């Protein structure tokens, strides 16, 4: 025995060992750099979006002082807060009052460059506090798109000079624009808001979730727990895998040909958008769901069967609750994809200009990614920052959903 030197103890072996360890180190380093690279790209993307987009949450506003004591406006408290009230102020000449004081504060040139709809903001403030009408008040009103871009150092020479002058007088500032979160689309970048698209996305996602989740989960349960292994279930499996792989635009064609034929008057509605996206999301949920269901240990099923639970009870009392975290993960991934999807929605009319936030599932709407897409091709340069801001909102929404997925996963996760 002792004269036999095992090959694993020779110097040659040890020399090779060094190389193998070098290979190991390289491999590990490659793995690490793959991750670092991916994360770096992510951080770069998020970082540059944030930098570009921060400005999108602000808008250029000019200072206007209005002395209402001179204006002679009156407000009926009963009407305040209603359309009527706004109209009565309009008929009393509020727009002219605003114009007049704008010229007072900013000079004629400057007054040209407050947004034409600025008086509405004044009206809103009067509605909130009719007492203003008794005194002098200072308002920060949105500047026109031209003045805003002049302030940003772009646009025509005149505007840049005007902007510089007003800014030096402290009458032009970029202020945080809270209204961005409560308004809908508009033609003037100074007046756009994200709420309409966000609402559209939320409504669409609700429809998607309400359809894709139950159908996906039930289909996954059937395929994993009950389906006999035969040609039919093979066919179902094939079509589910295939649907997960079909380019999204084709779902748009399906929505166009099927849903819009059945419900022609719901073009652009979150209902149809949600149904189309649900078909796209459902296979992802089925696939993730099947994996999660497969991971539930058979001993749990045996245990329940052995005390006389029926197969349906076993599934709904034991398997489903245990598989839920995995199903939720798949659902969120599918929903995240649906959230960022534009192509299929192009086909079913969600590429629309909708100036008021949708108030129901059948009201015309647009969604966040579509809003981003539309704004990115706007002629007006003020939309560049707004686009980035919208992207940030979308990403936050996405992070929220991912966070929710992780939270739910951890909450429901059980060990066995």
């Amino acid at each position, binding site marked *: 025995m002792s004269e036999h030197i095992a090959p694993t103890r020779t110097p040659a072996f040890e020399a090779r060992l060094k190389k193998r360890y070098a290979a190991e180190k390289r491999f590990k380093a490659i793995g690490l750099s793959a991750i670092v690279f991916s994360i770096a790209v992510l951080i770069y993307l998020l970082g540059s979006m944030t930098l570009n987009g921060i400005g999108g949450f602000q808008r250029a506003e000019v200072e206007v002082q209005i002395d209402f004591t001179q204006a002679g406006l009156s407000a009926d408290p009963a009407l305040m807060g209603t359309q009527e009230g706004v109209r009565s102020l309009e008929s009393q000449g509020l727009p002219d009052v605003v114009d007049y004081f704008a010229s007072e504060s900013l000079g004629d040139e400057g007054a040209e460059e407050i947004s034409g709809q600025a008086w509405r903001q004044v009206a809103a403030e009067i509605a909130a506090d009719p007492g203003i009408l008794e005194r002098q008040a200072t308002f920060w009103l949105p500047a026109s798109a031209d003045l805003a871009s002049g302030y940003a150092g772009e646009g025509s020479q005149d505007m840049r000079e005007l902007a510089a002058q007003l800014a030096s007088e402290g009458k032009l500032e970029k202020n945080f624009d809270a209204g961005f979160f409560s308004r809908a689309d508009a033609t003037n970048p100074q007046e756009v808001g994200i709420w309409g698209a966000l609402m559209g996305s939320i409504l669409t996602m609700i429809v998607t979730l309400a359809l894709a989740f139950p159908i996906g989960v039930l289909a996954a349960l059937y395929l994993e727990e009950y389906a006999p292994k035969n040609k039919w279930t093979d066919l179902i499996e094939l079509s589910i895998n295939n649907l997960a792989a079909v380019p999204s635009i084709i779902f748009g064609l399906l929505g166009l040909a099927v849903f819009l034929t059945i419900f022609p008057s719901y073009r652009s509605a979150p209902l149809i958008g949600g149904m189309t996206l649900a078909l796209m999301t459902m296979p992802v949920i089925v696939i993730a769901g099947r994996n999660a269901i497969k991971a539930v240990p058979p001993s749990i*099923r045996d245990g329940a069967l*052995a005390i006389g*639970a029926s197969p349906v009870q076993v599934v709904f009392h034991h398997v489903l609750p245990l598989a839920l975290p995995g199903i939720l993960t798949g659902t969120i991934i599918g929903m995240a994809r649906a959230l960022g999807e534009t192509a299929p929605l192009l086909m079913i009319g969600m590429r629309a200009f909708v100036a008021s936030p949708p108030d129901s599932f059948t009201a015309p709407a647009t969604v966040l990614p579509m809003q981003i897409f539309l704004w990115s091709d706007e002629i007006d340069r003020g939309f560049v920052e707004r686009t980035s801001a919208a992207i940030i909102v979308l990403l936050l929404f996405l992070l929220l959903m991912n966070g929710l997925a992780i939270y739910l996963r951890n909450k429901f996760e059980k060990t*066995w």
Partner: protein
Amino acid sequence: MTVVHENLENTDAKMSARDVSVFYGDKKAIDNVSIDIPTEYVTAFIGPSGCGKSTFLRSLNRMNDTIPSARVEGTIMLDGEDIHSPSLDVVQLRARVGMVFQKPNPFPKSIYENIAYGPKIHGLAEGKDELDAVVEKSLRRAGLWEEVKDRLQDSGTALSGGQQQRLCIARAIAVDPEVILMDEPCSALDPIATAKIEELIDELNGRYAIVIVTHSMQQAARVSQRTAFFHLGKMVEYGRTSDIFTNPIEQRTQDYITGRYG
């Protein structure tokens, strides 16, 4: 083919199998087994690994139905009624013939829910009070009450292995079965836990017909009054435990007992 010792008392058979064969696909895992399971005694199935003990046990409460490739031939009776007849619902059968598995498999729910699950789905208890009573009674019978009474809301999976196994037994008892089948219930447990389970089996003996599969002859000797020895899918010998261990008739039984294989 099976040697059945002749000195067995004539007892009522709670379950009886006649010419039972079990196939996995084309493979015969159990070959023509006939046996009576008495109510009064604990019956042990012993035999080398892979001889078909678990397979036969699982066919007694039709758990083999869950394996698509498995097929059972022959008749198995529970109280004289064929368990495969359409009139006997499989869910009801399993409620009457409980089972405890090799690896303790409590549900990942609270201890209380583990026990209450069976009574709930079978509607055996009305209202919270009755349910509480059933849970307590089952846990007491399984000798677990004292240990867990203050933590009924803890997860069943947070118990030690031996406690988990007793929980599974309590869970089986809770639906008031007539037969309890145990498939190597102690093989995942340490000696102390094992001793507790064996004590429990002794206590339950008489109230339920109990069948236990074990790979430990020592255990069979300790807890059972009847022993059946399986080998390569056949039941080789069946008789009083004391007889099988001291006076085996078949050569194969003797070889196995004395450690020639297994």
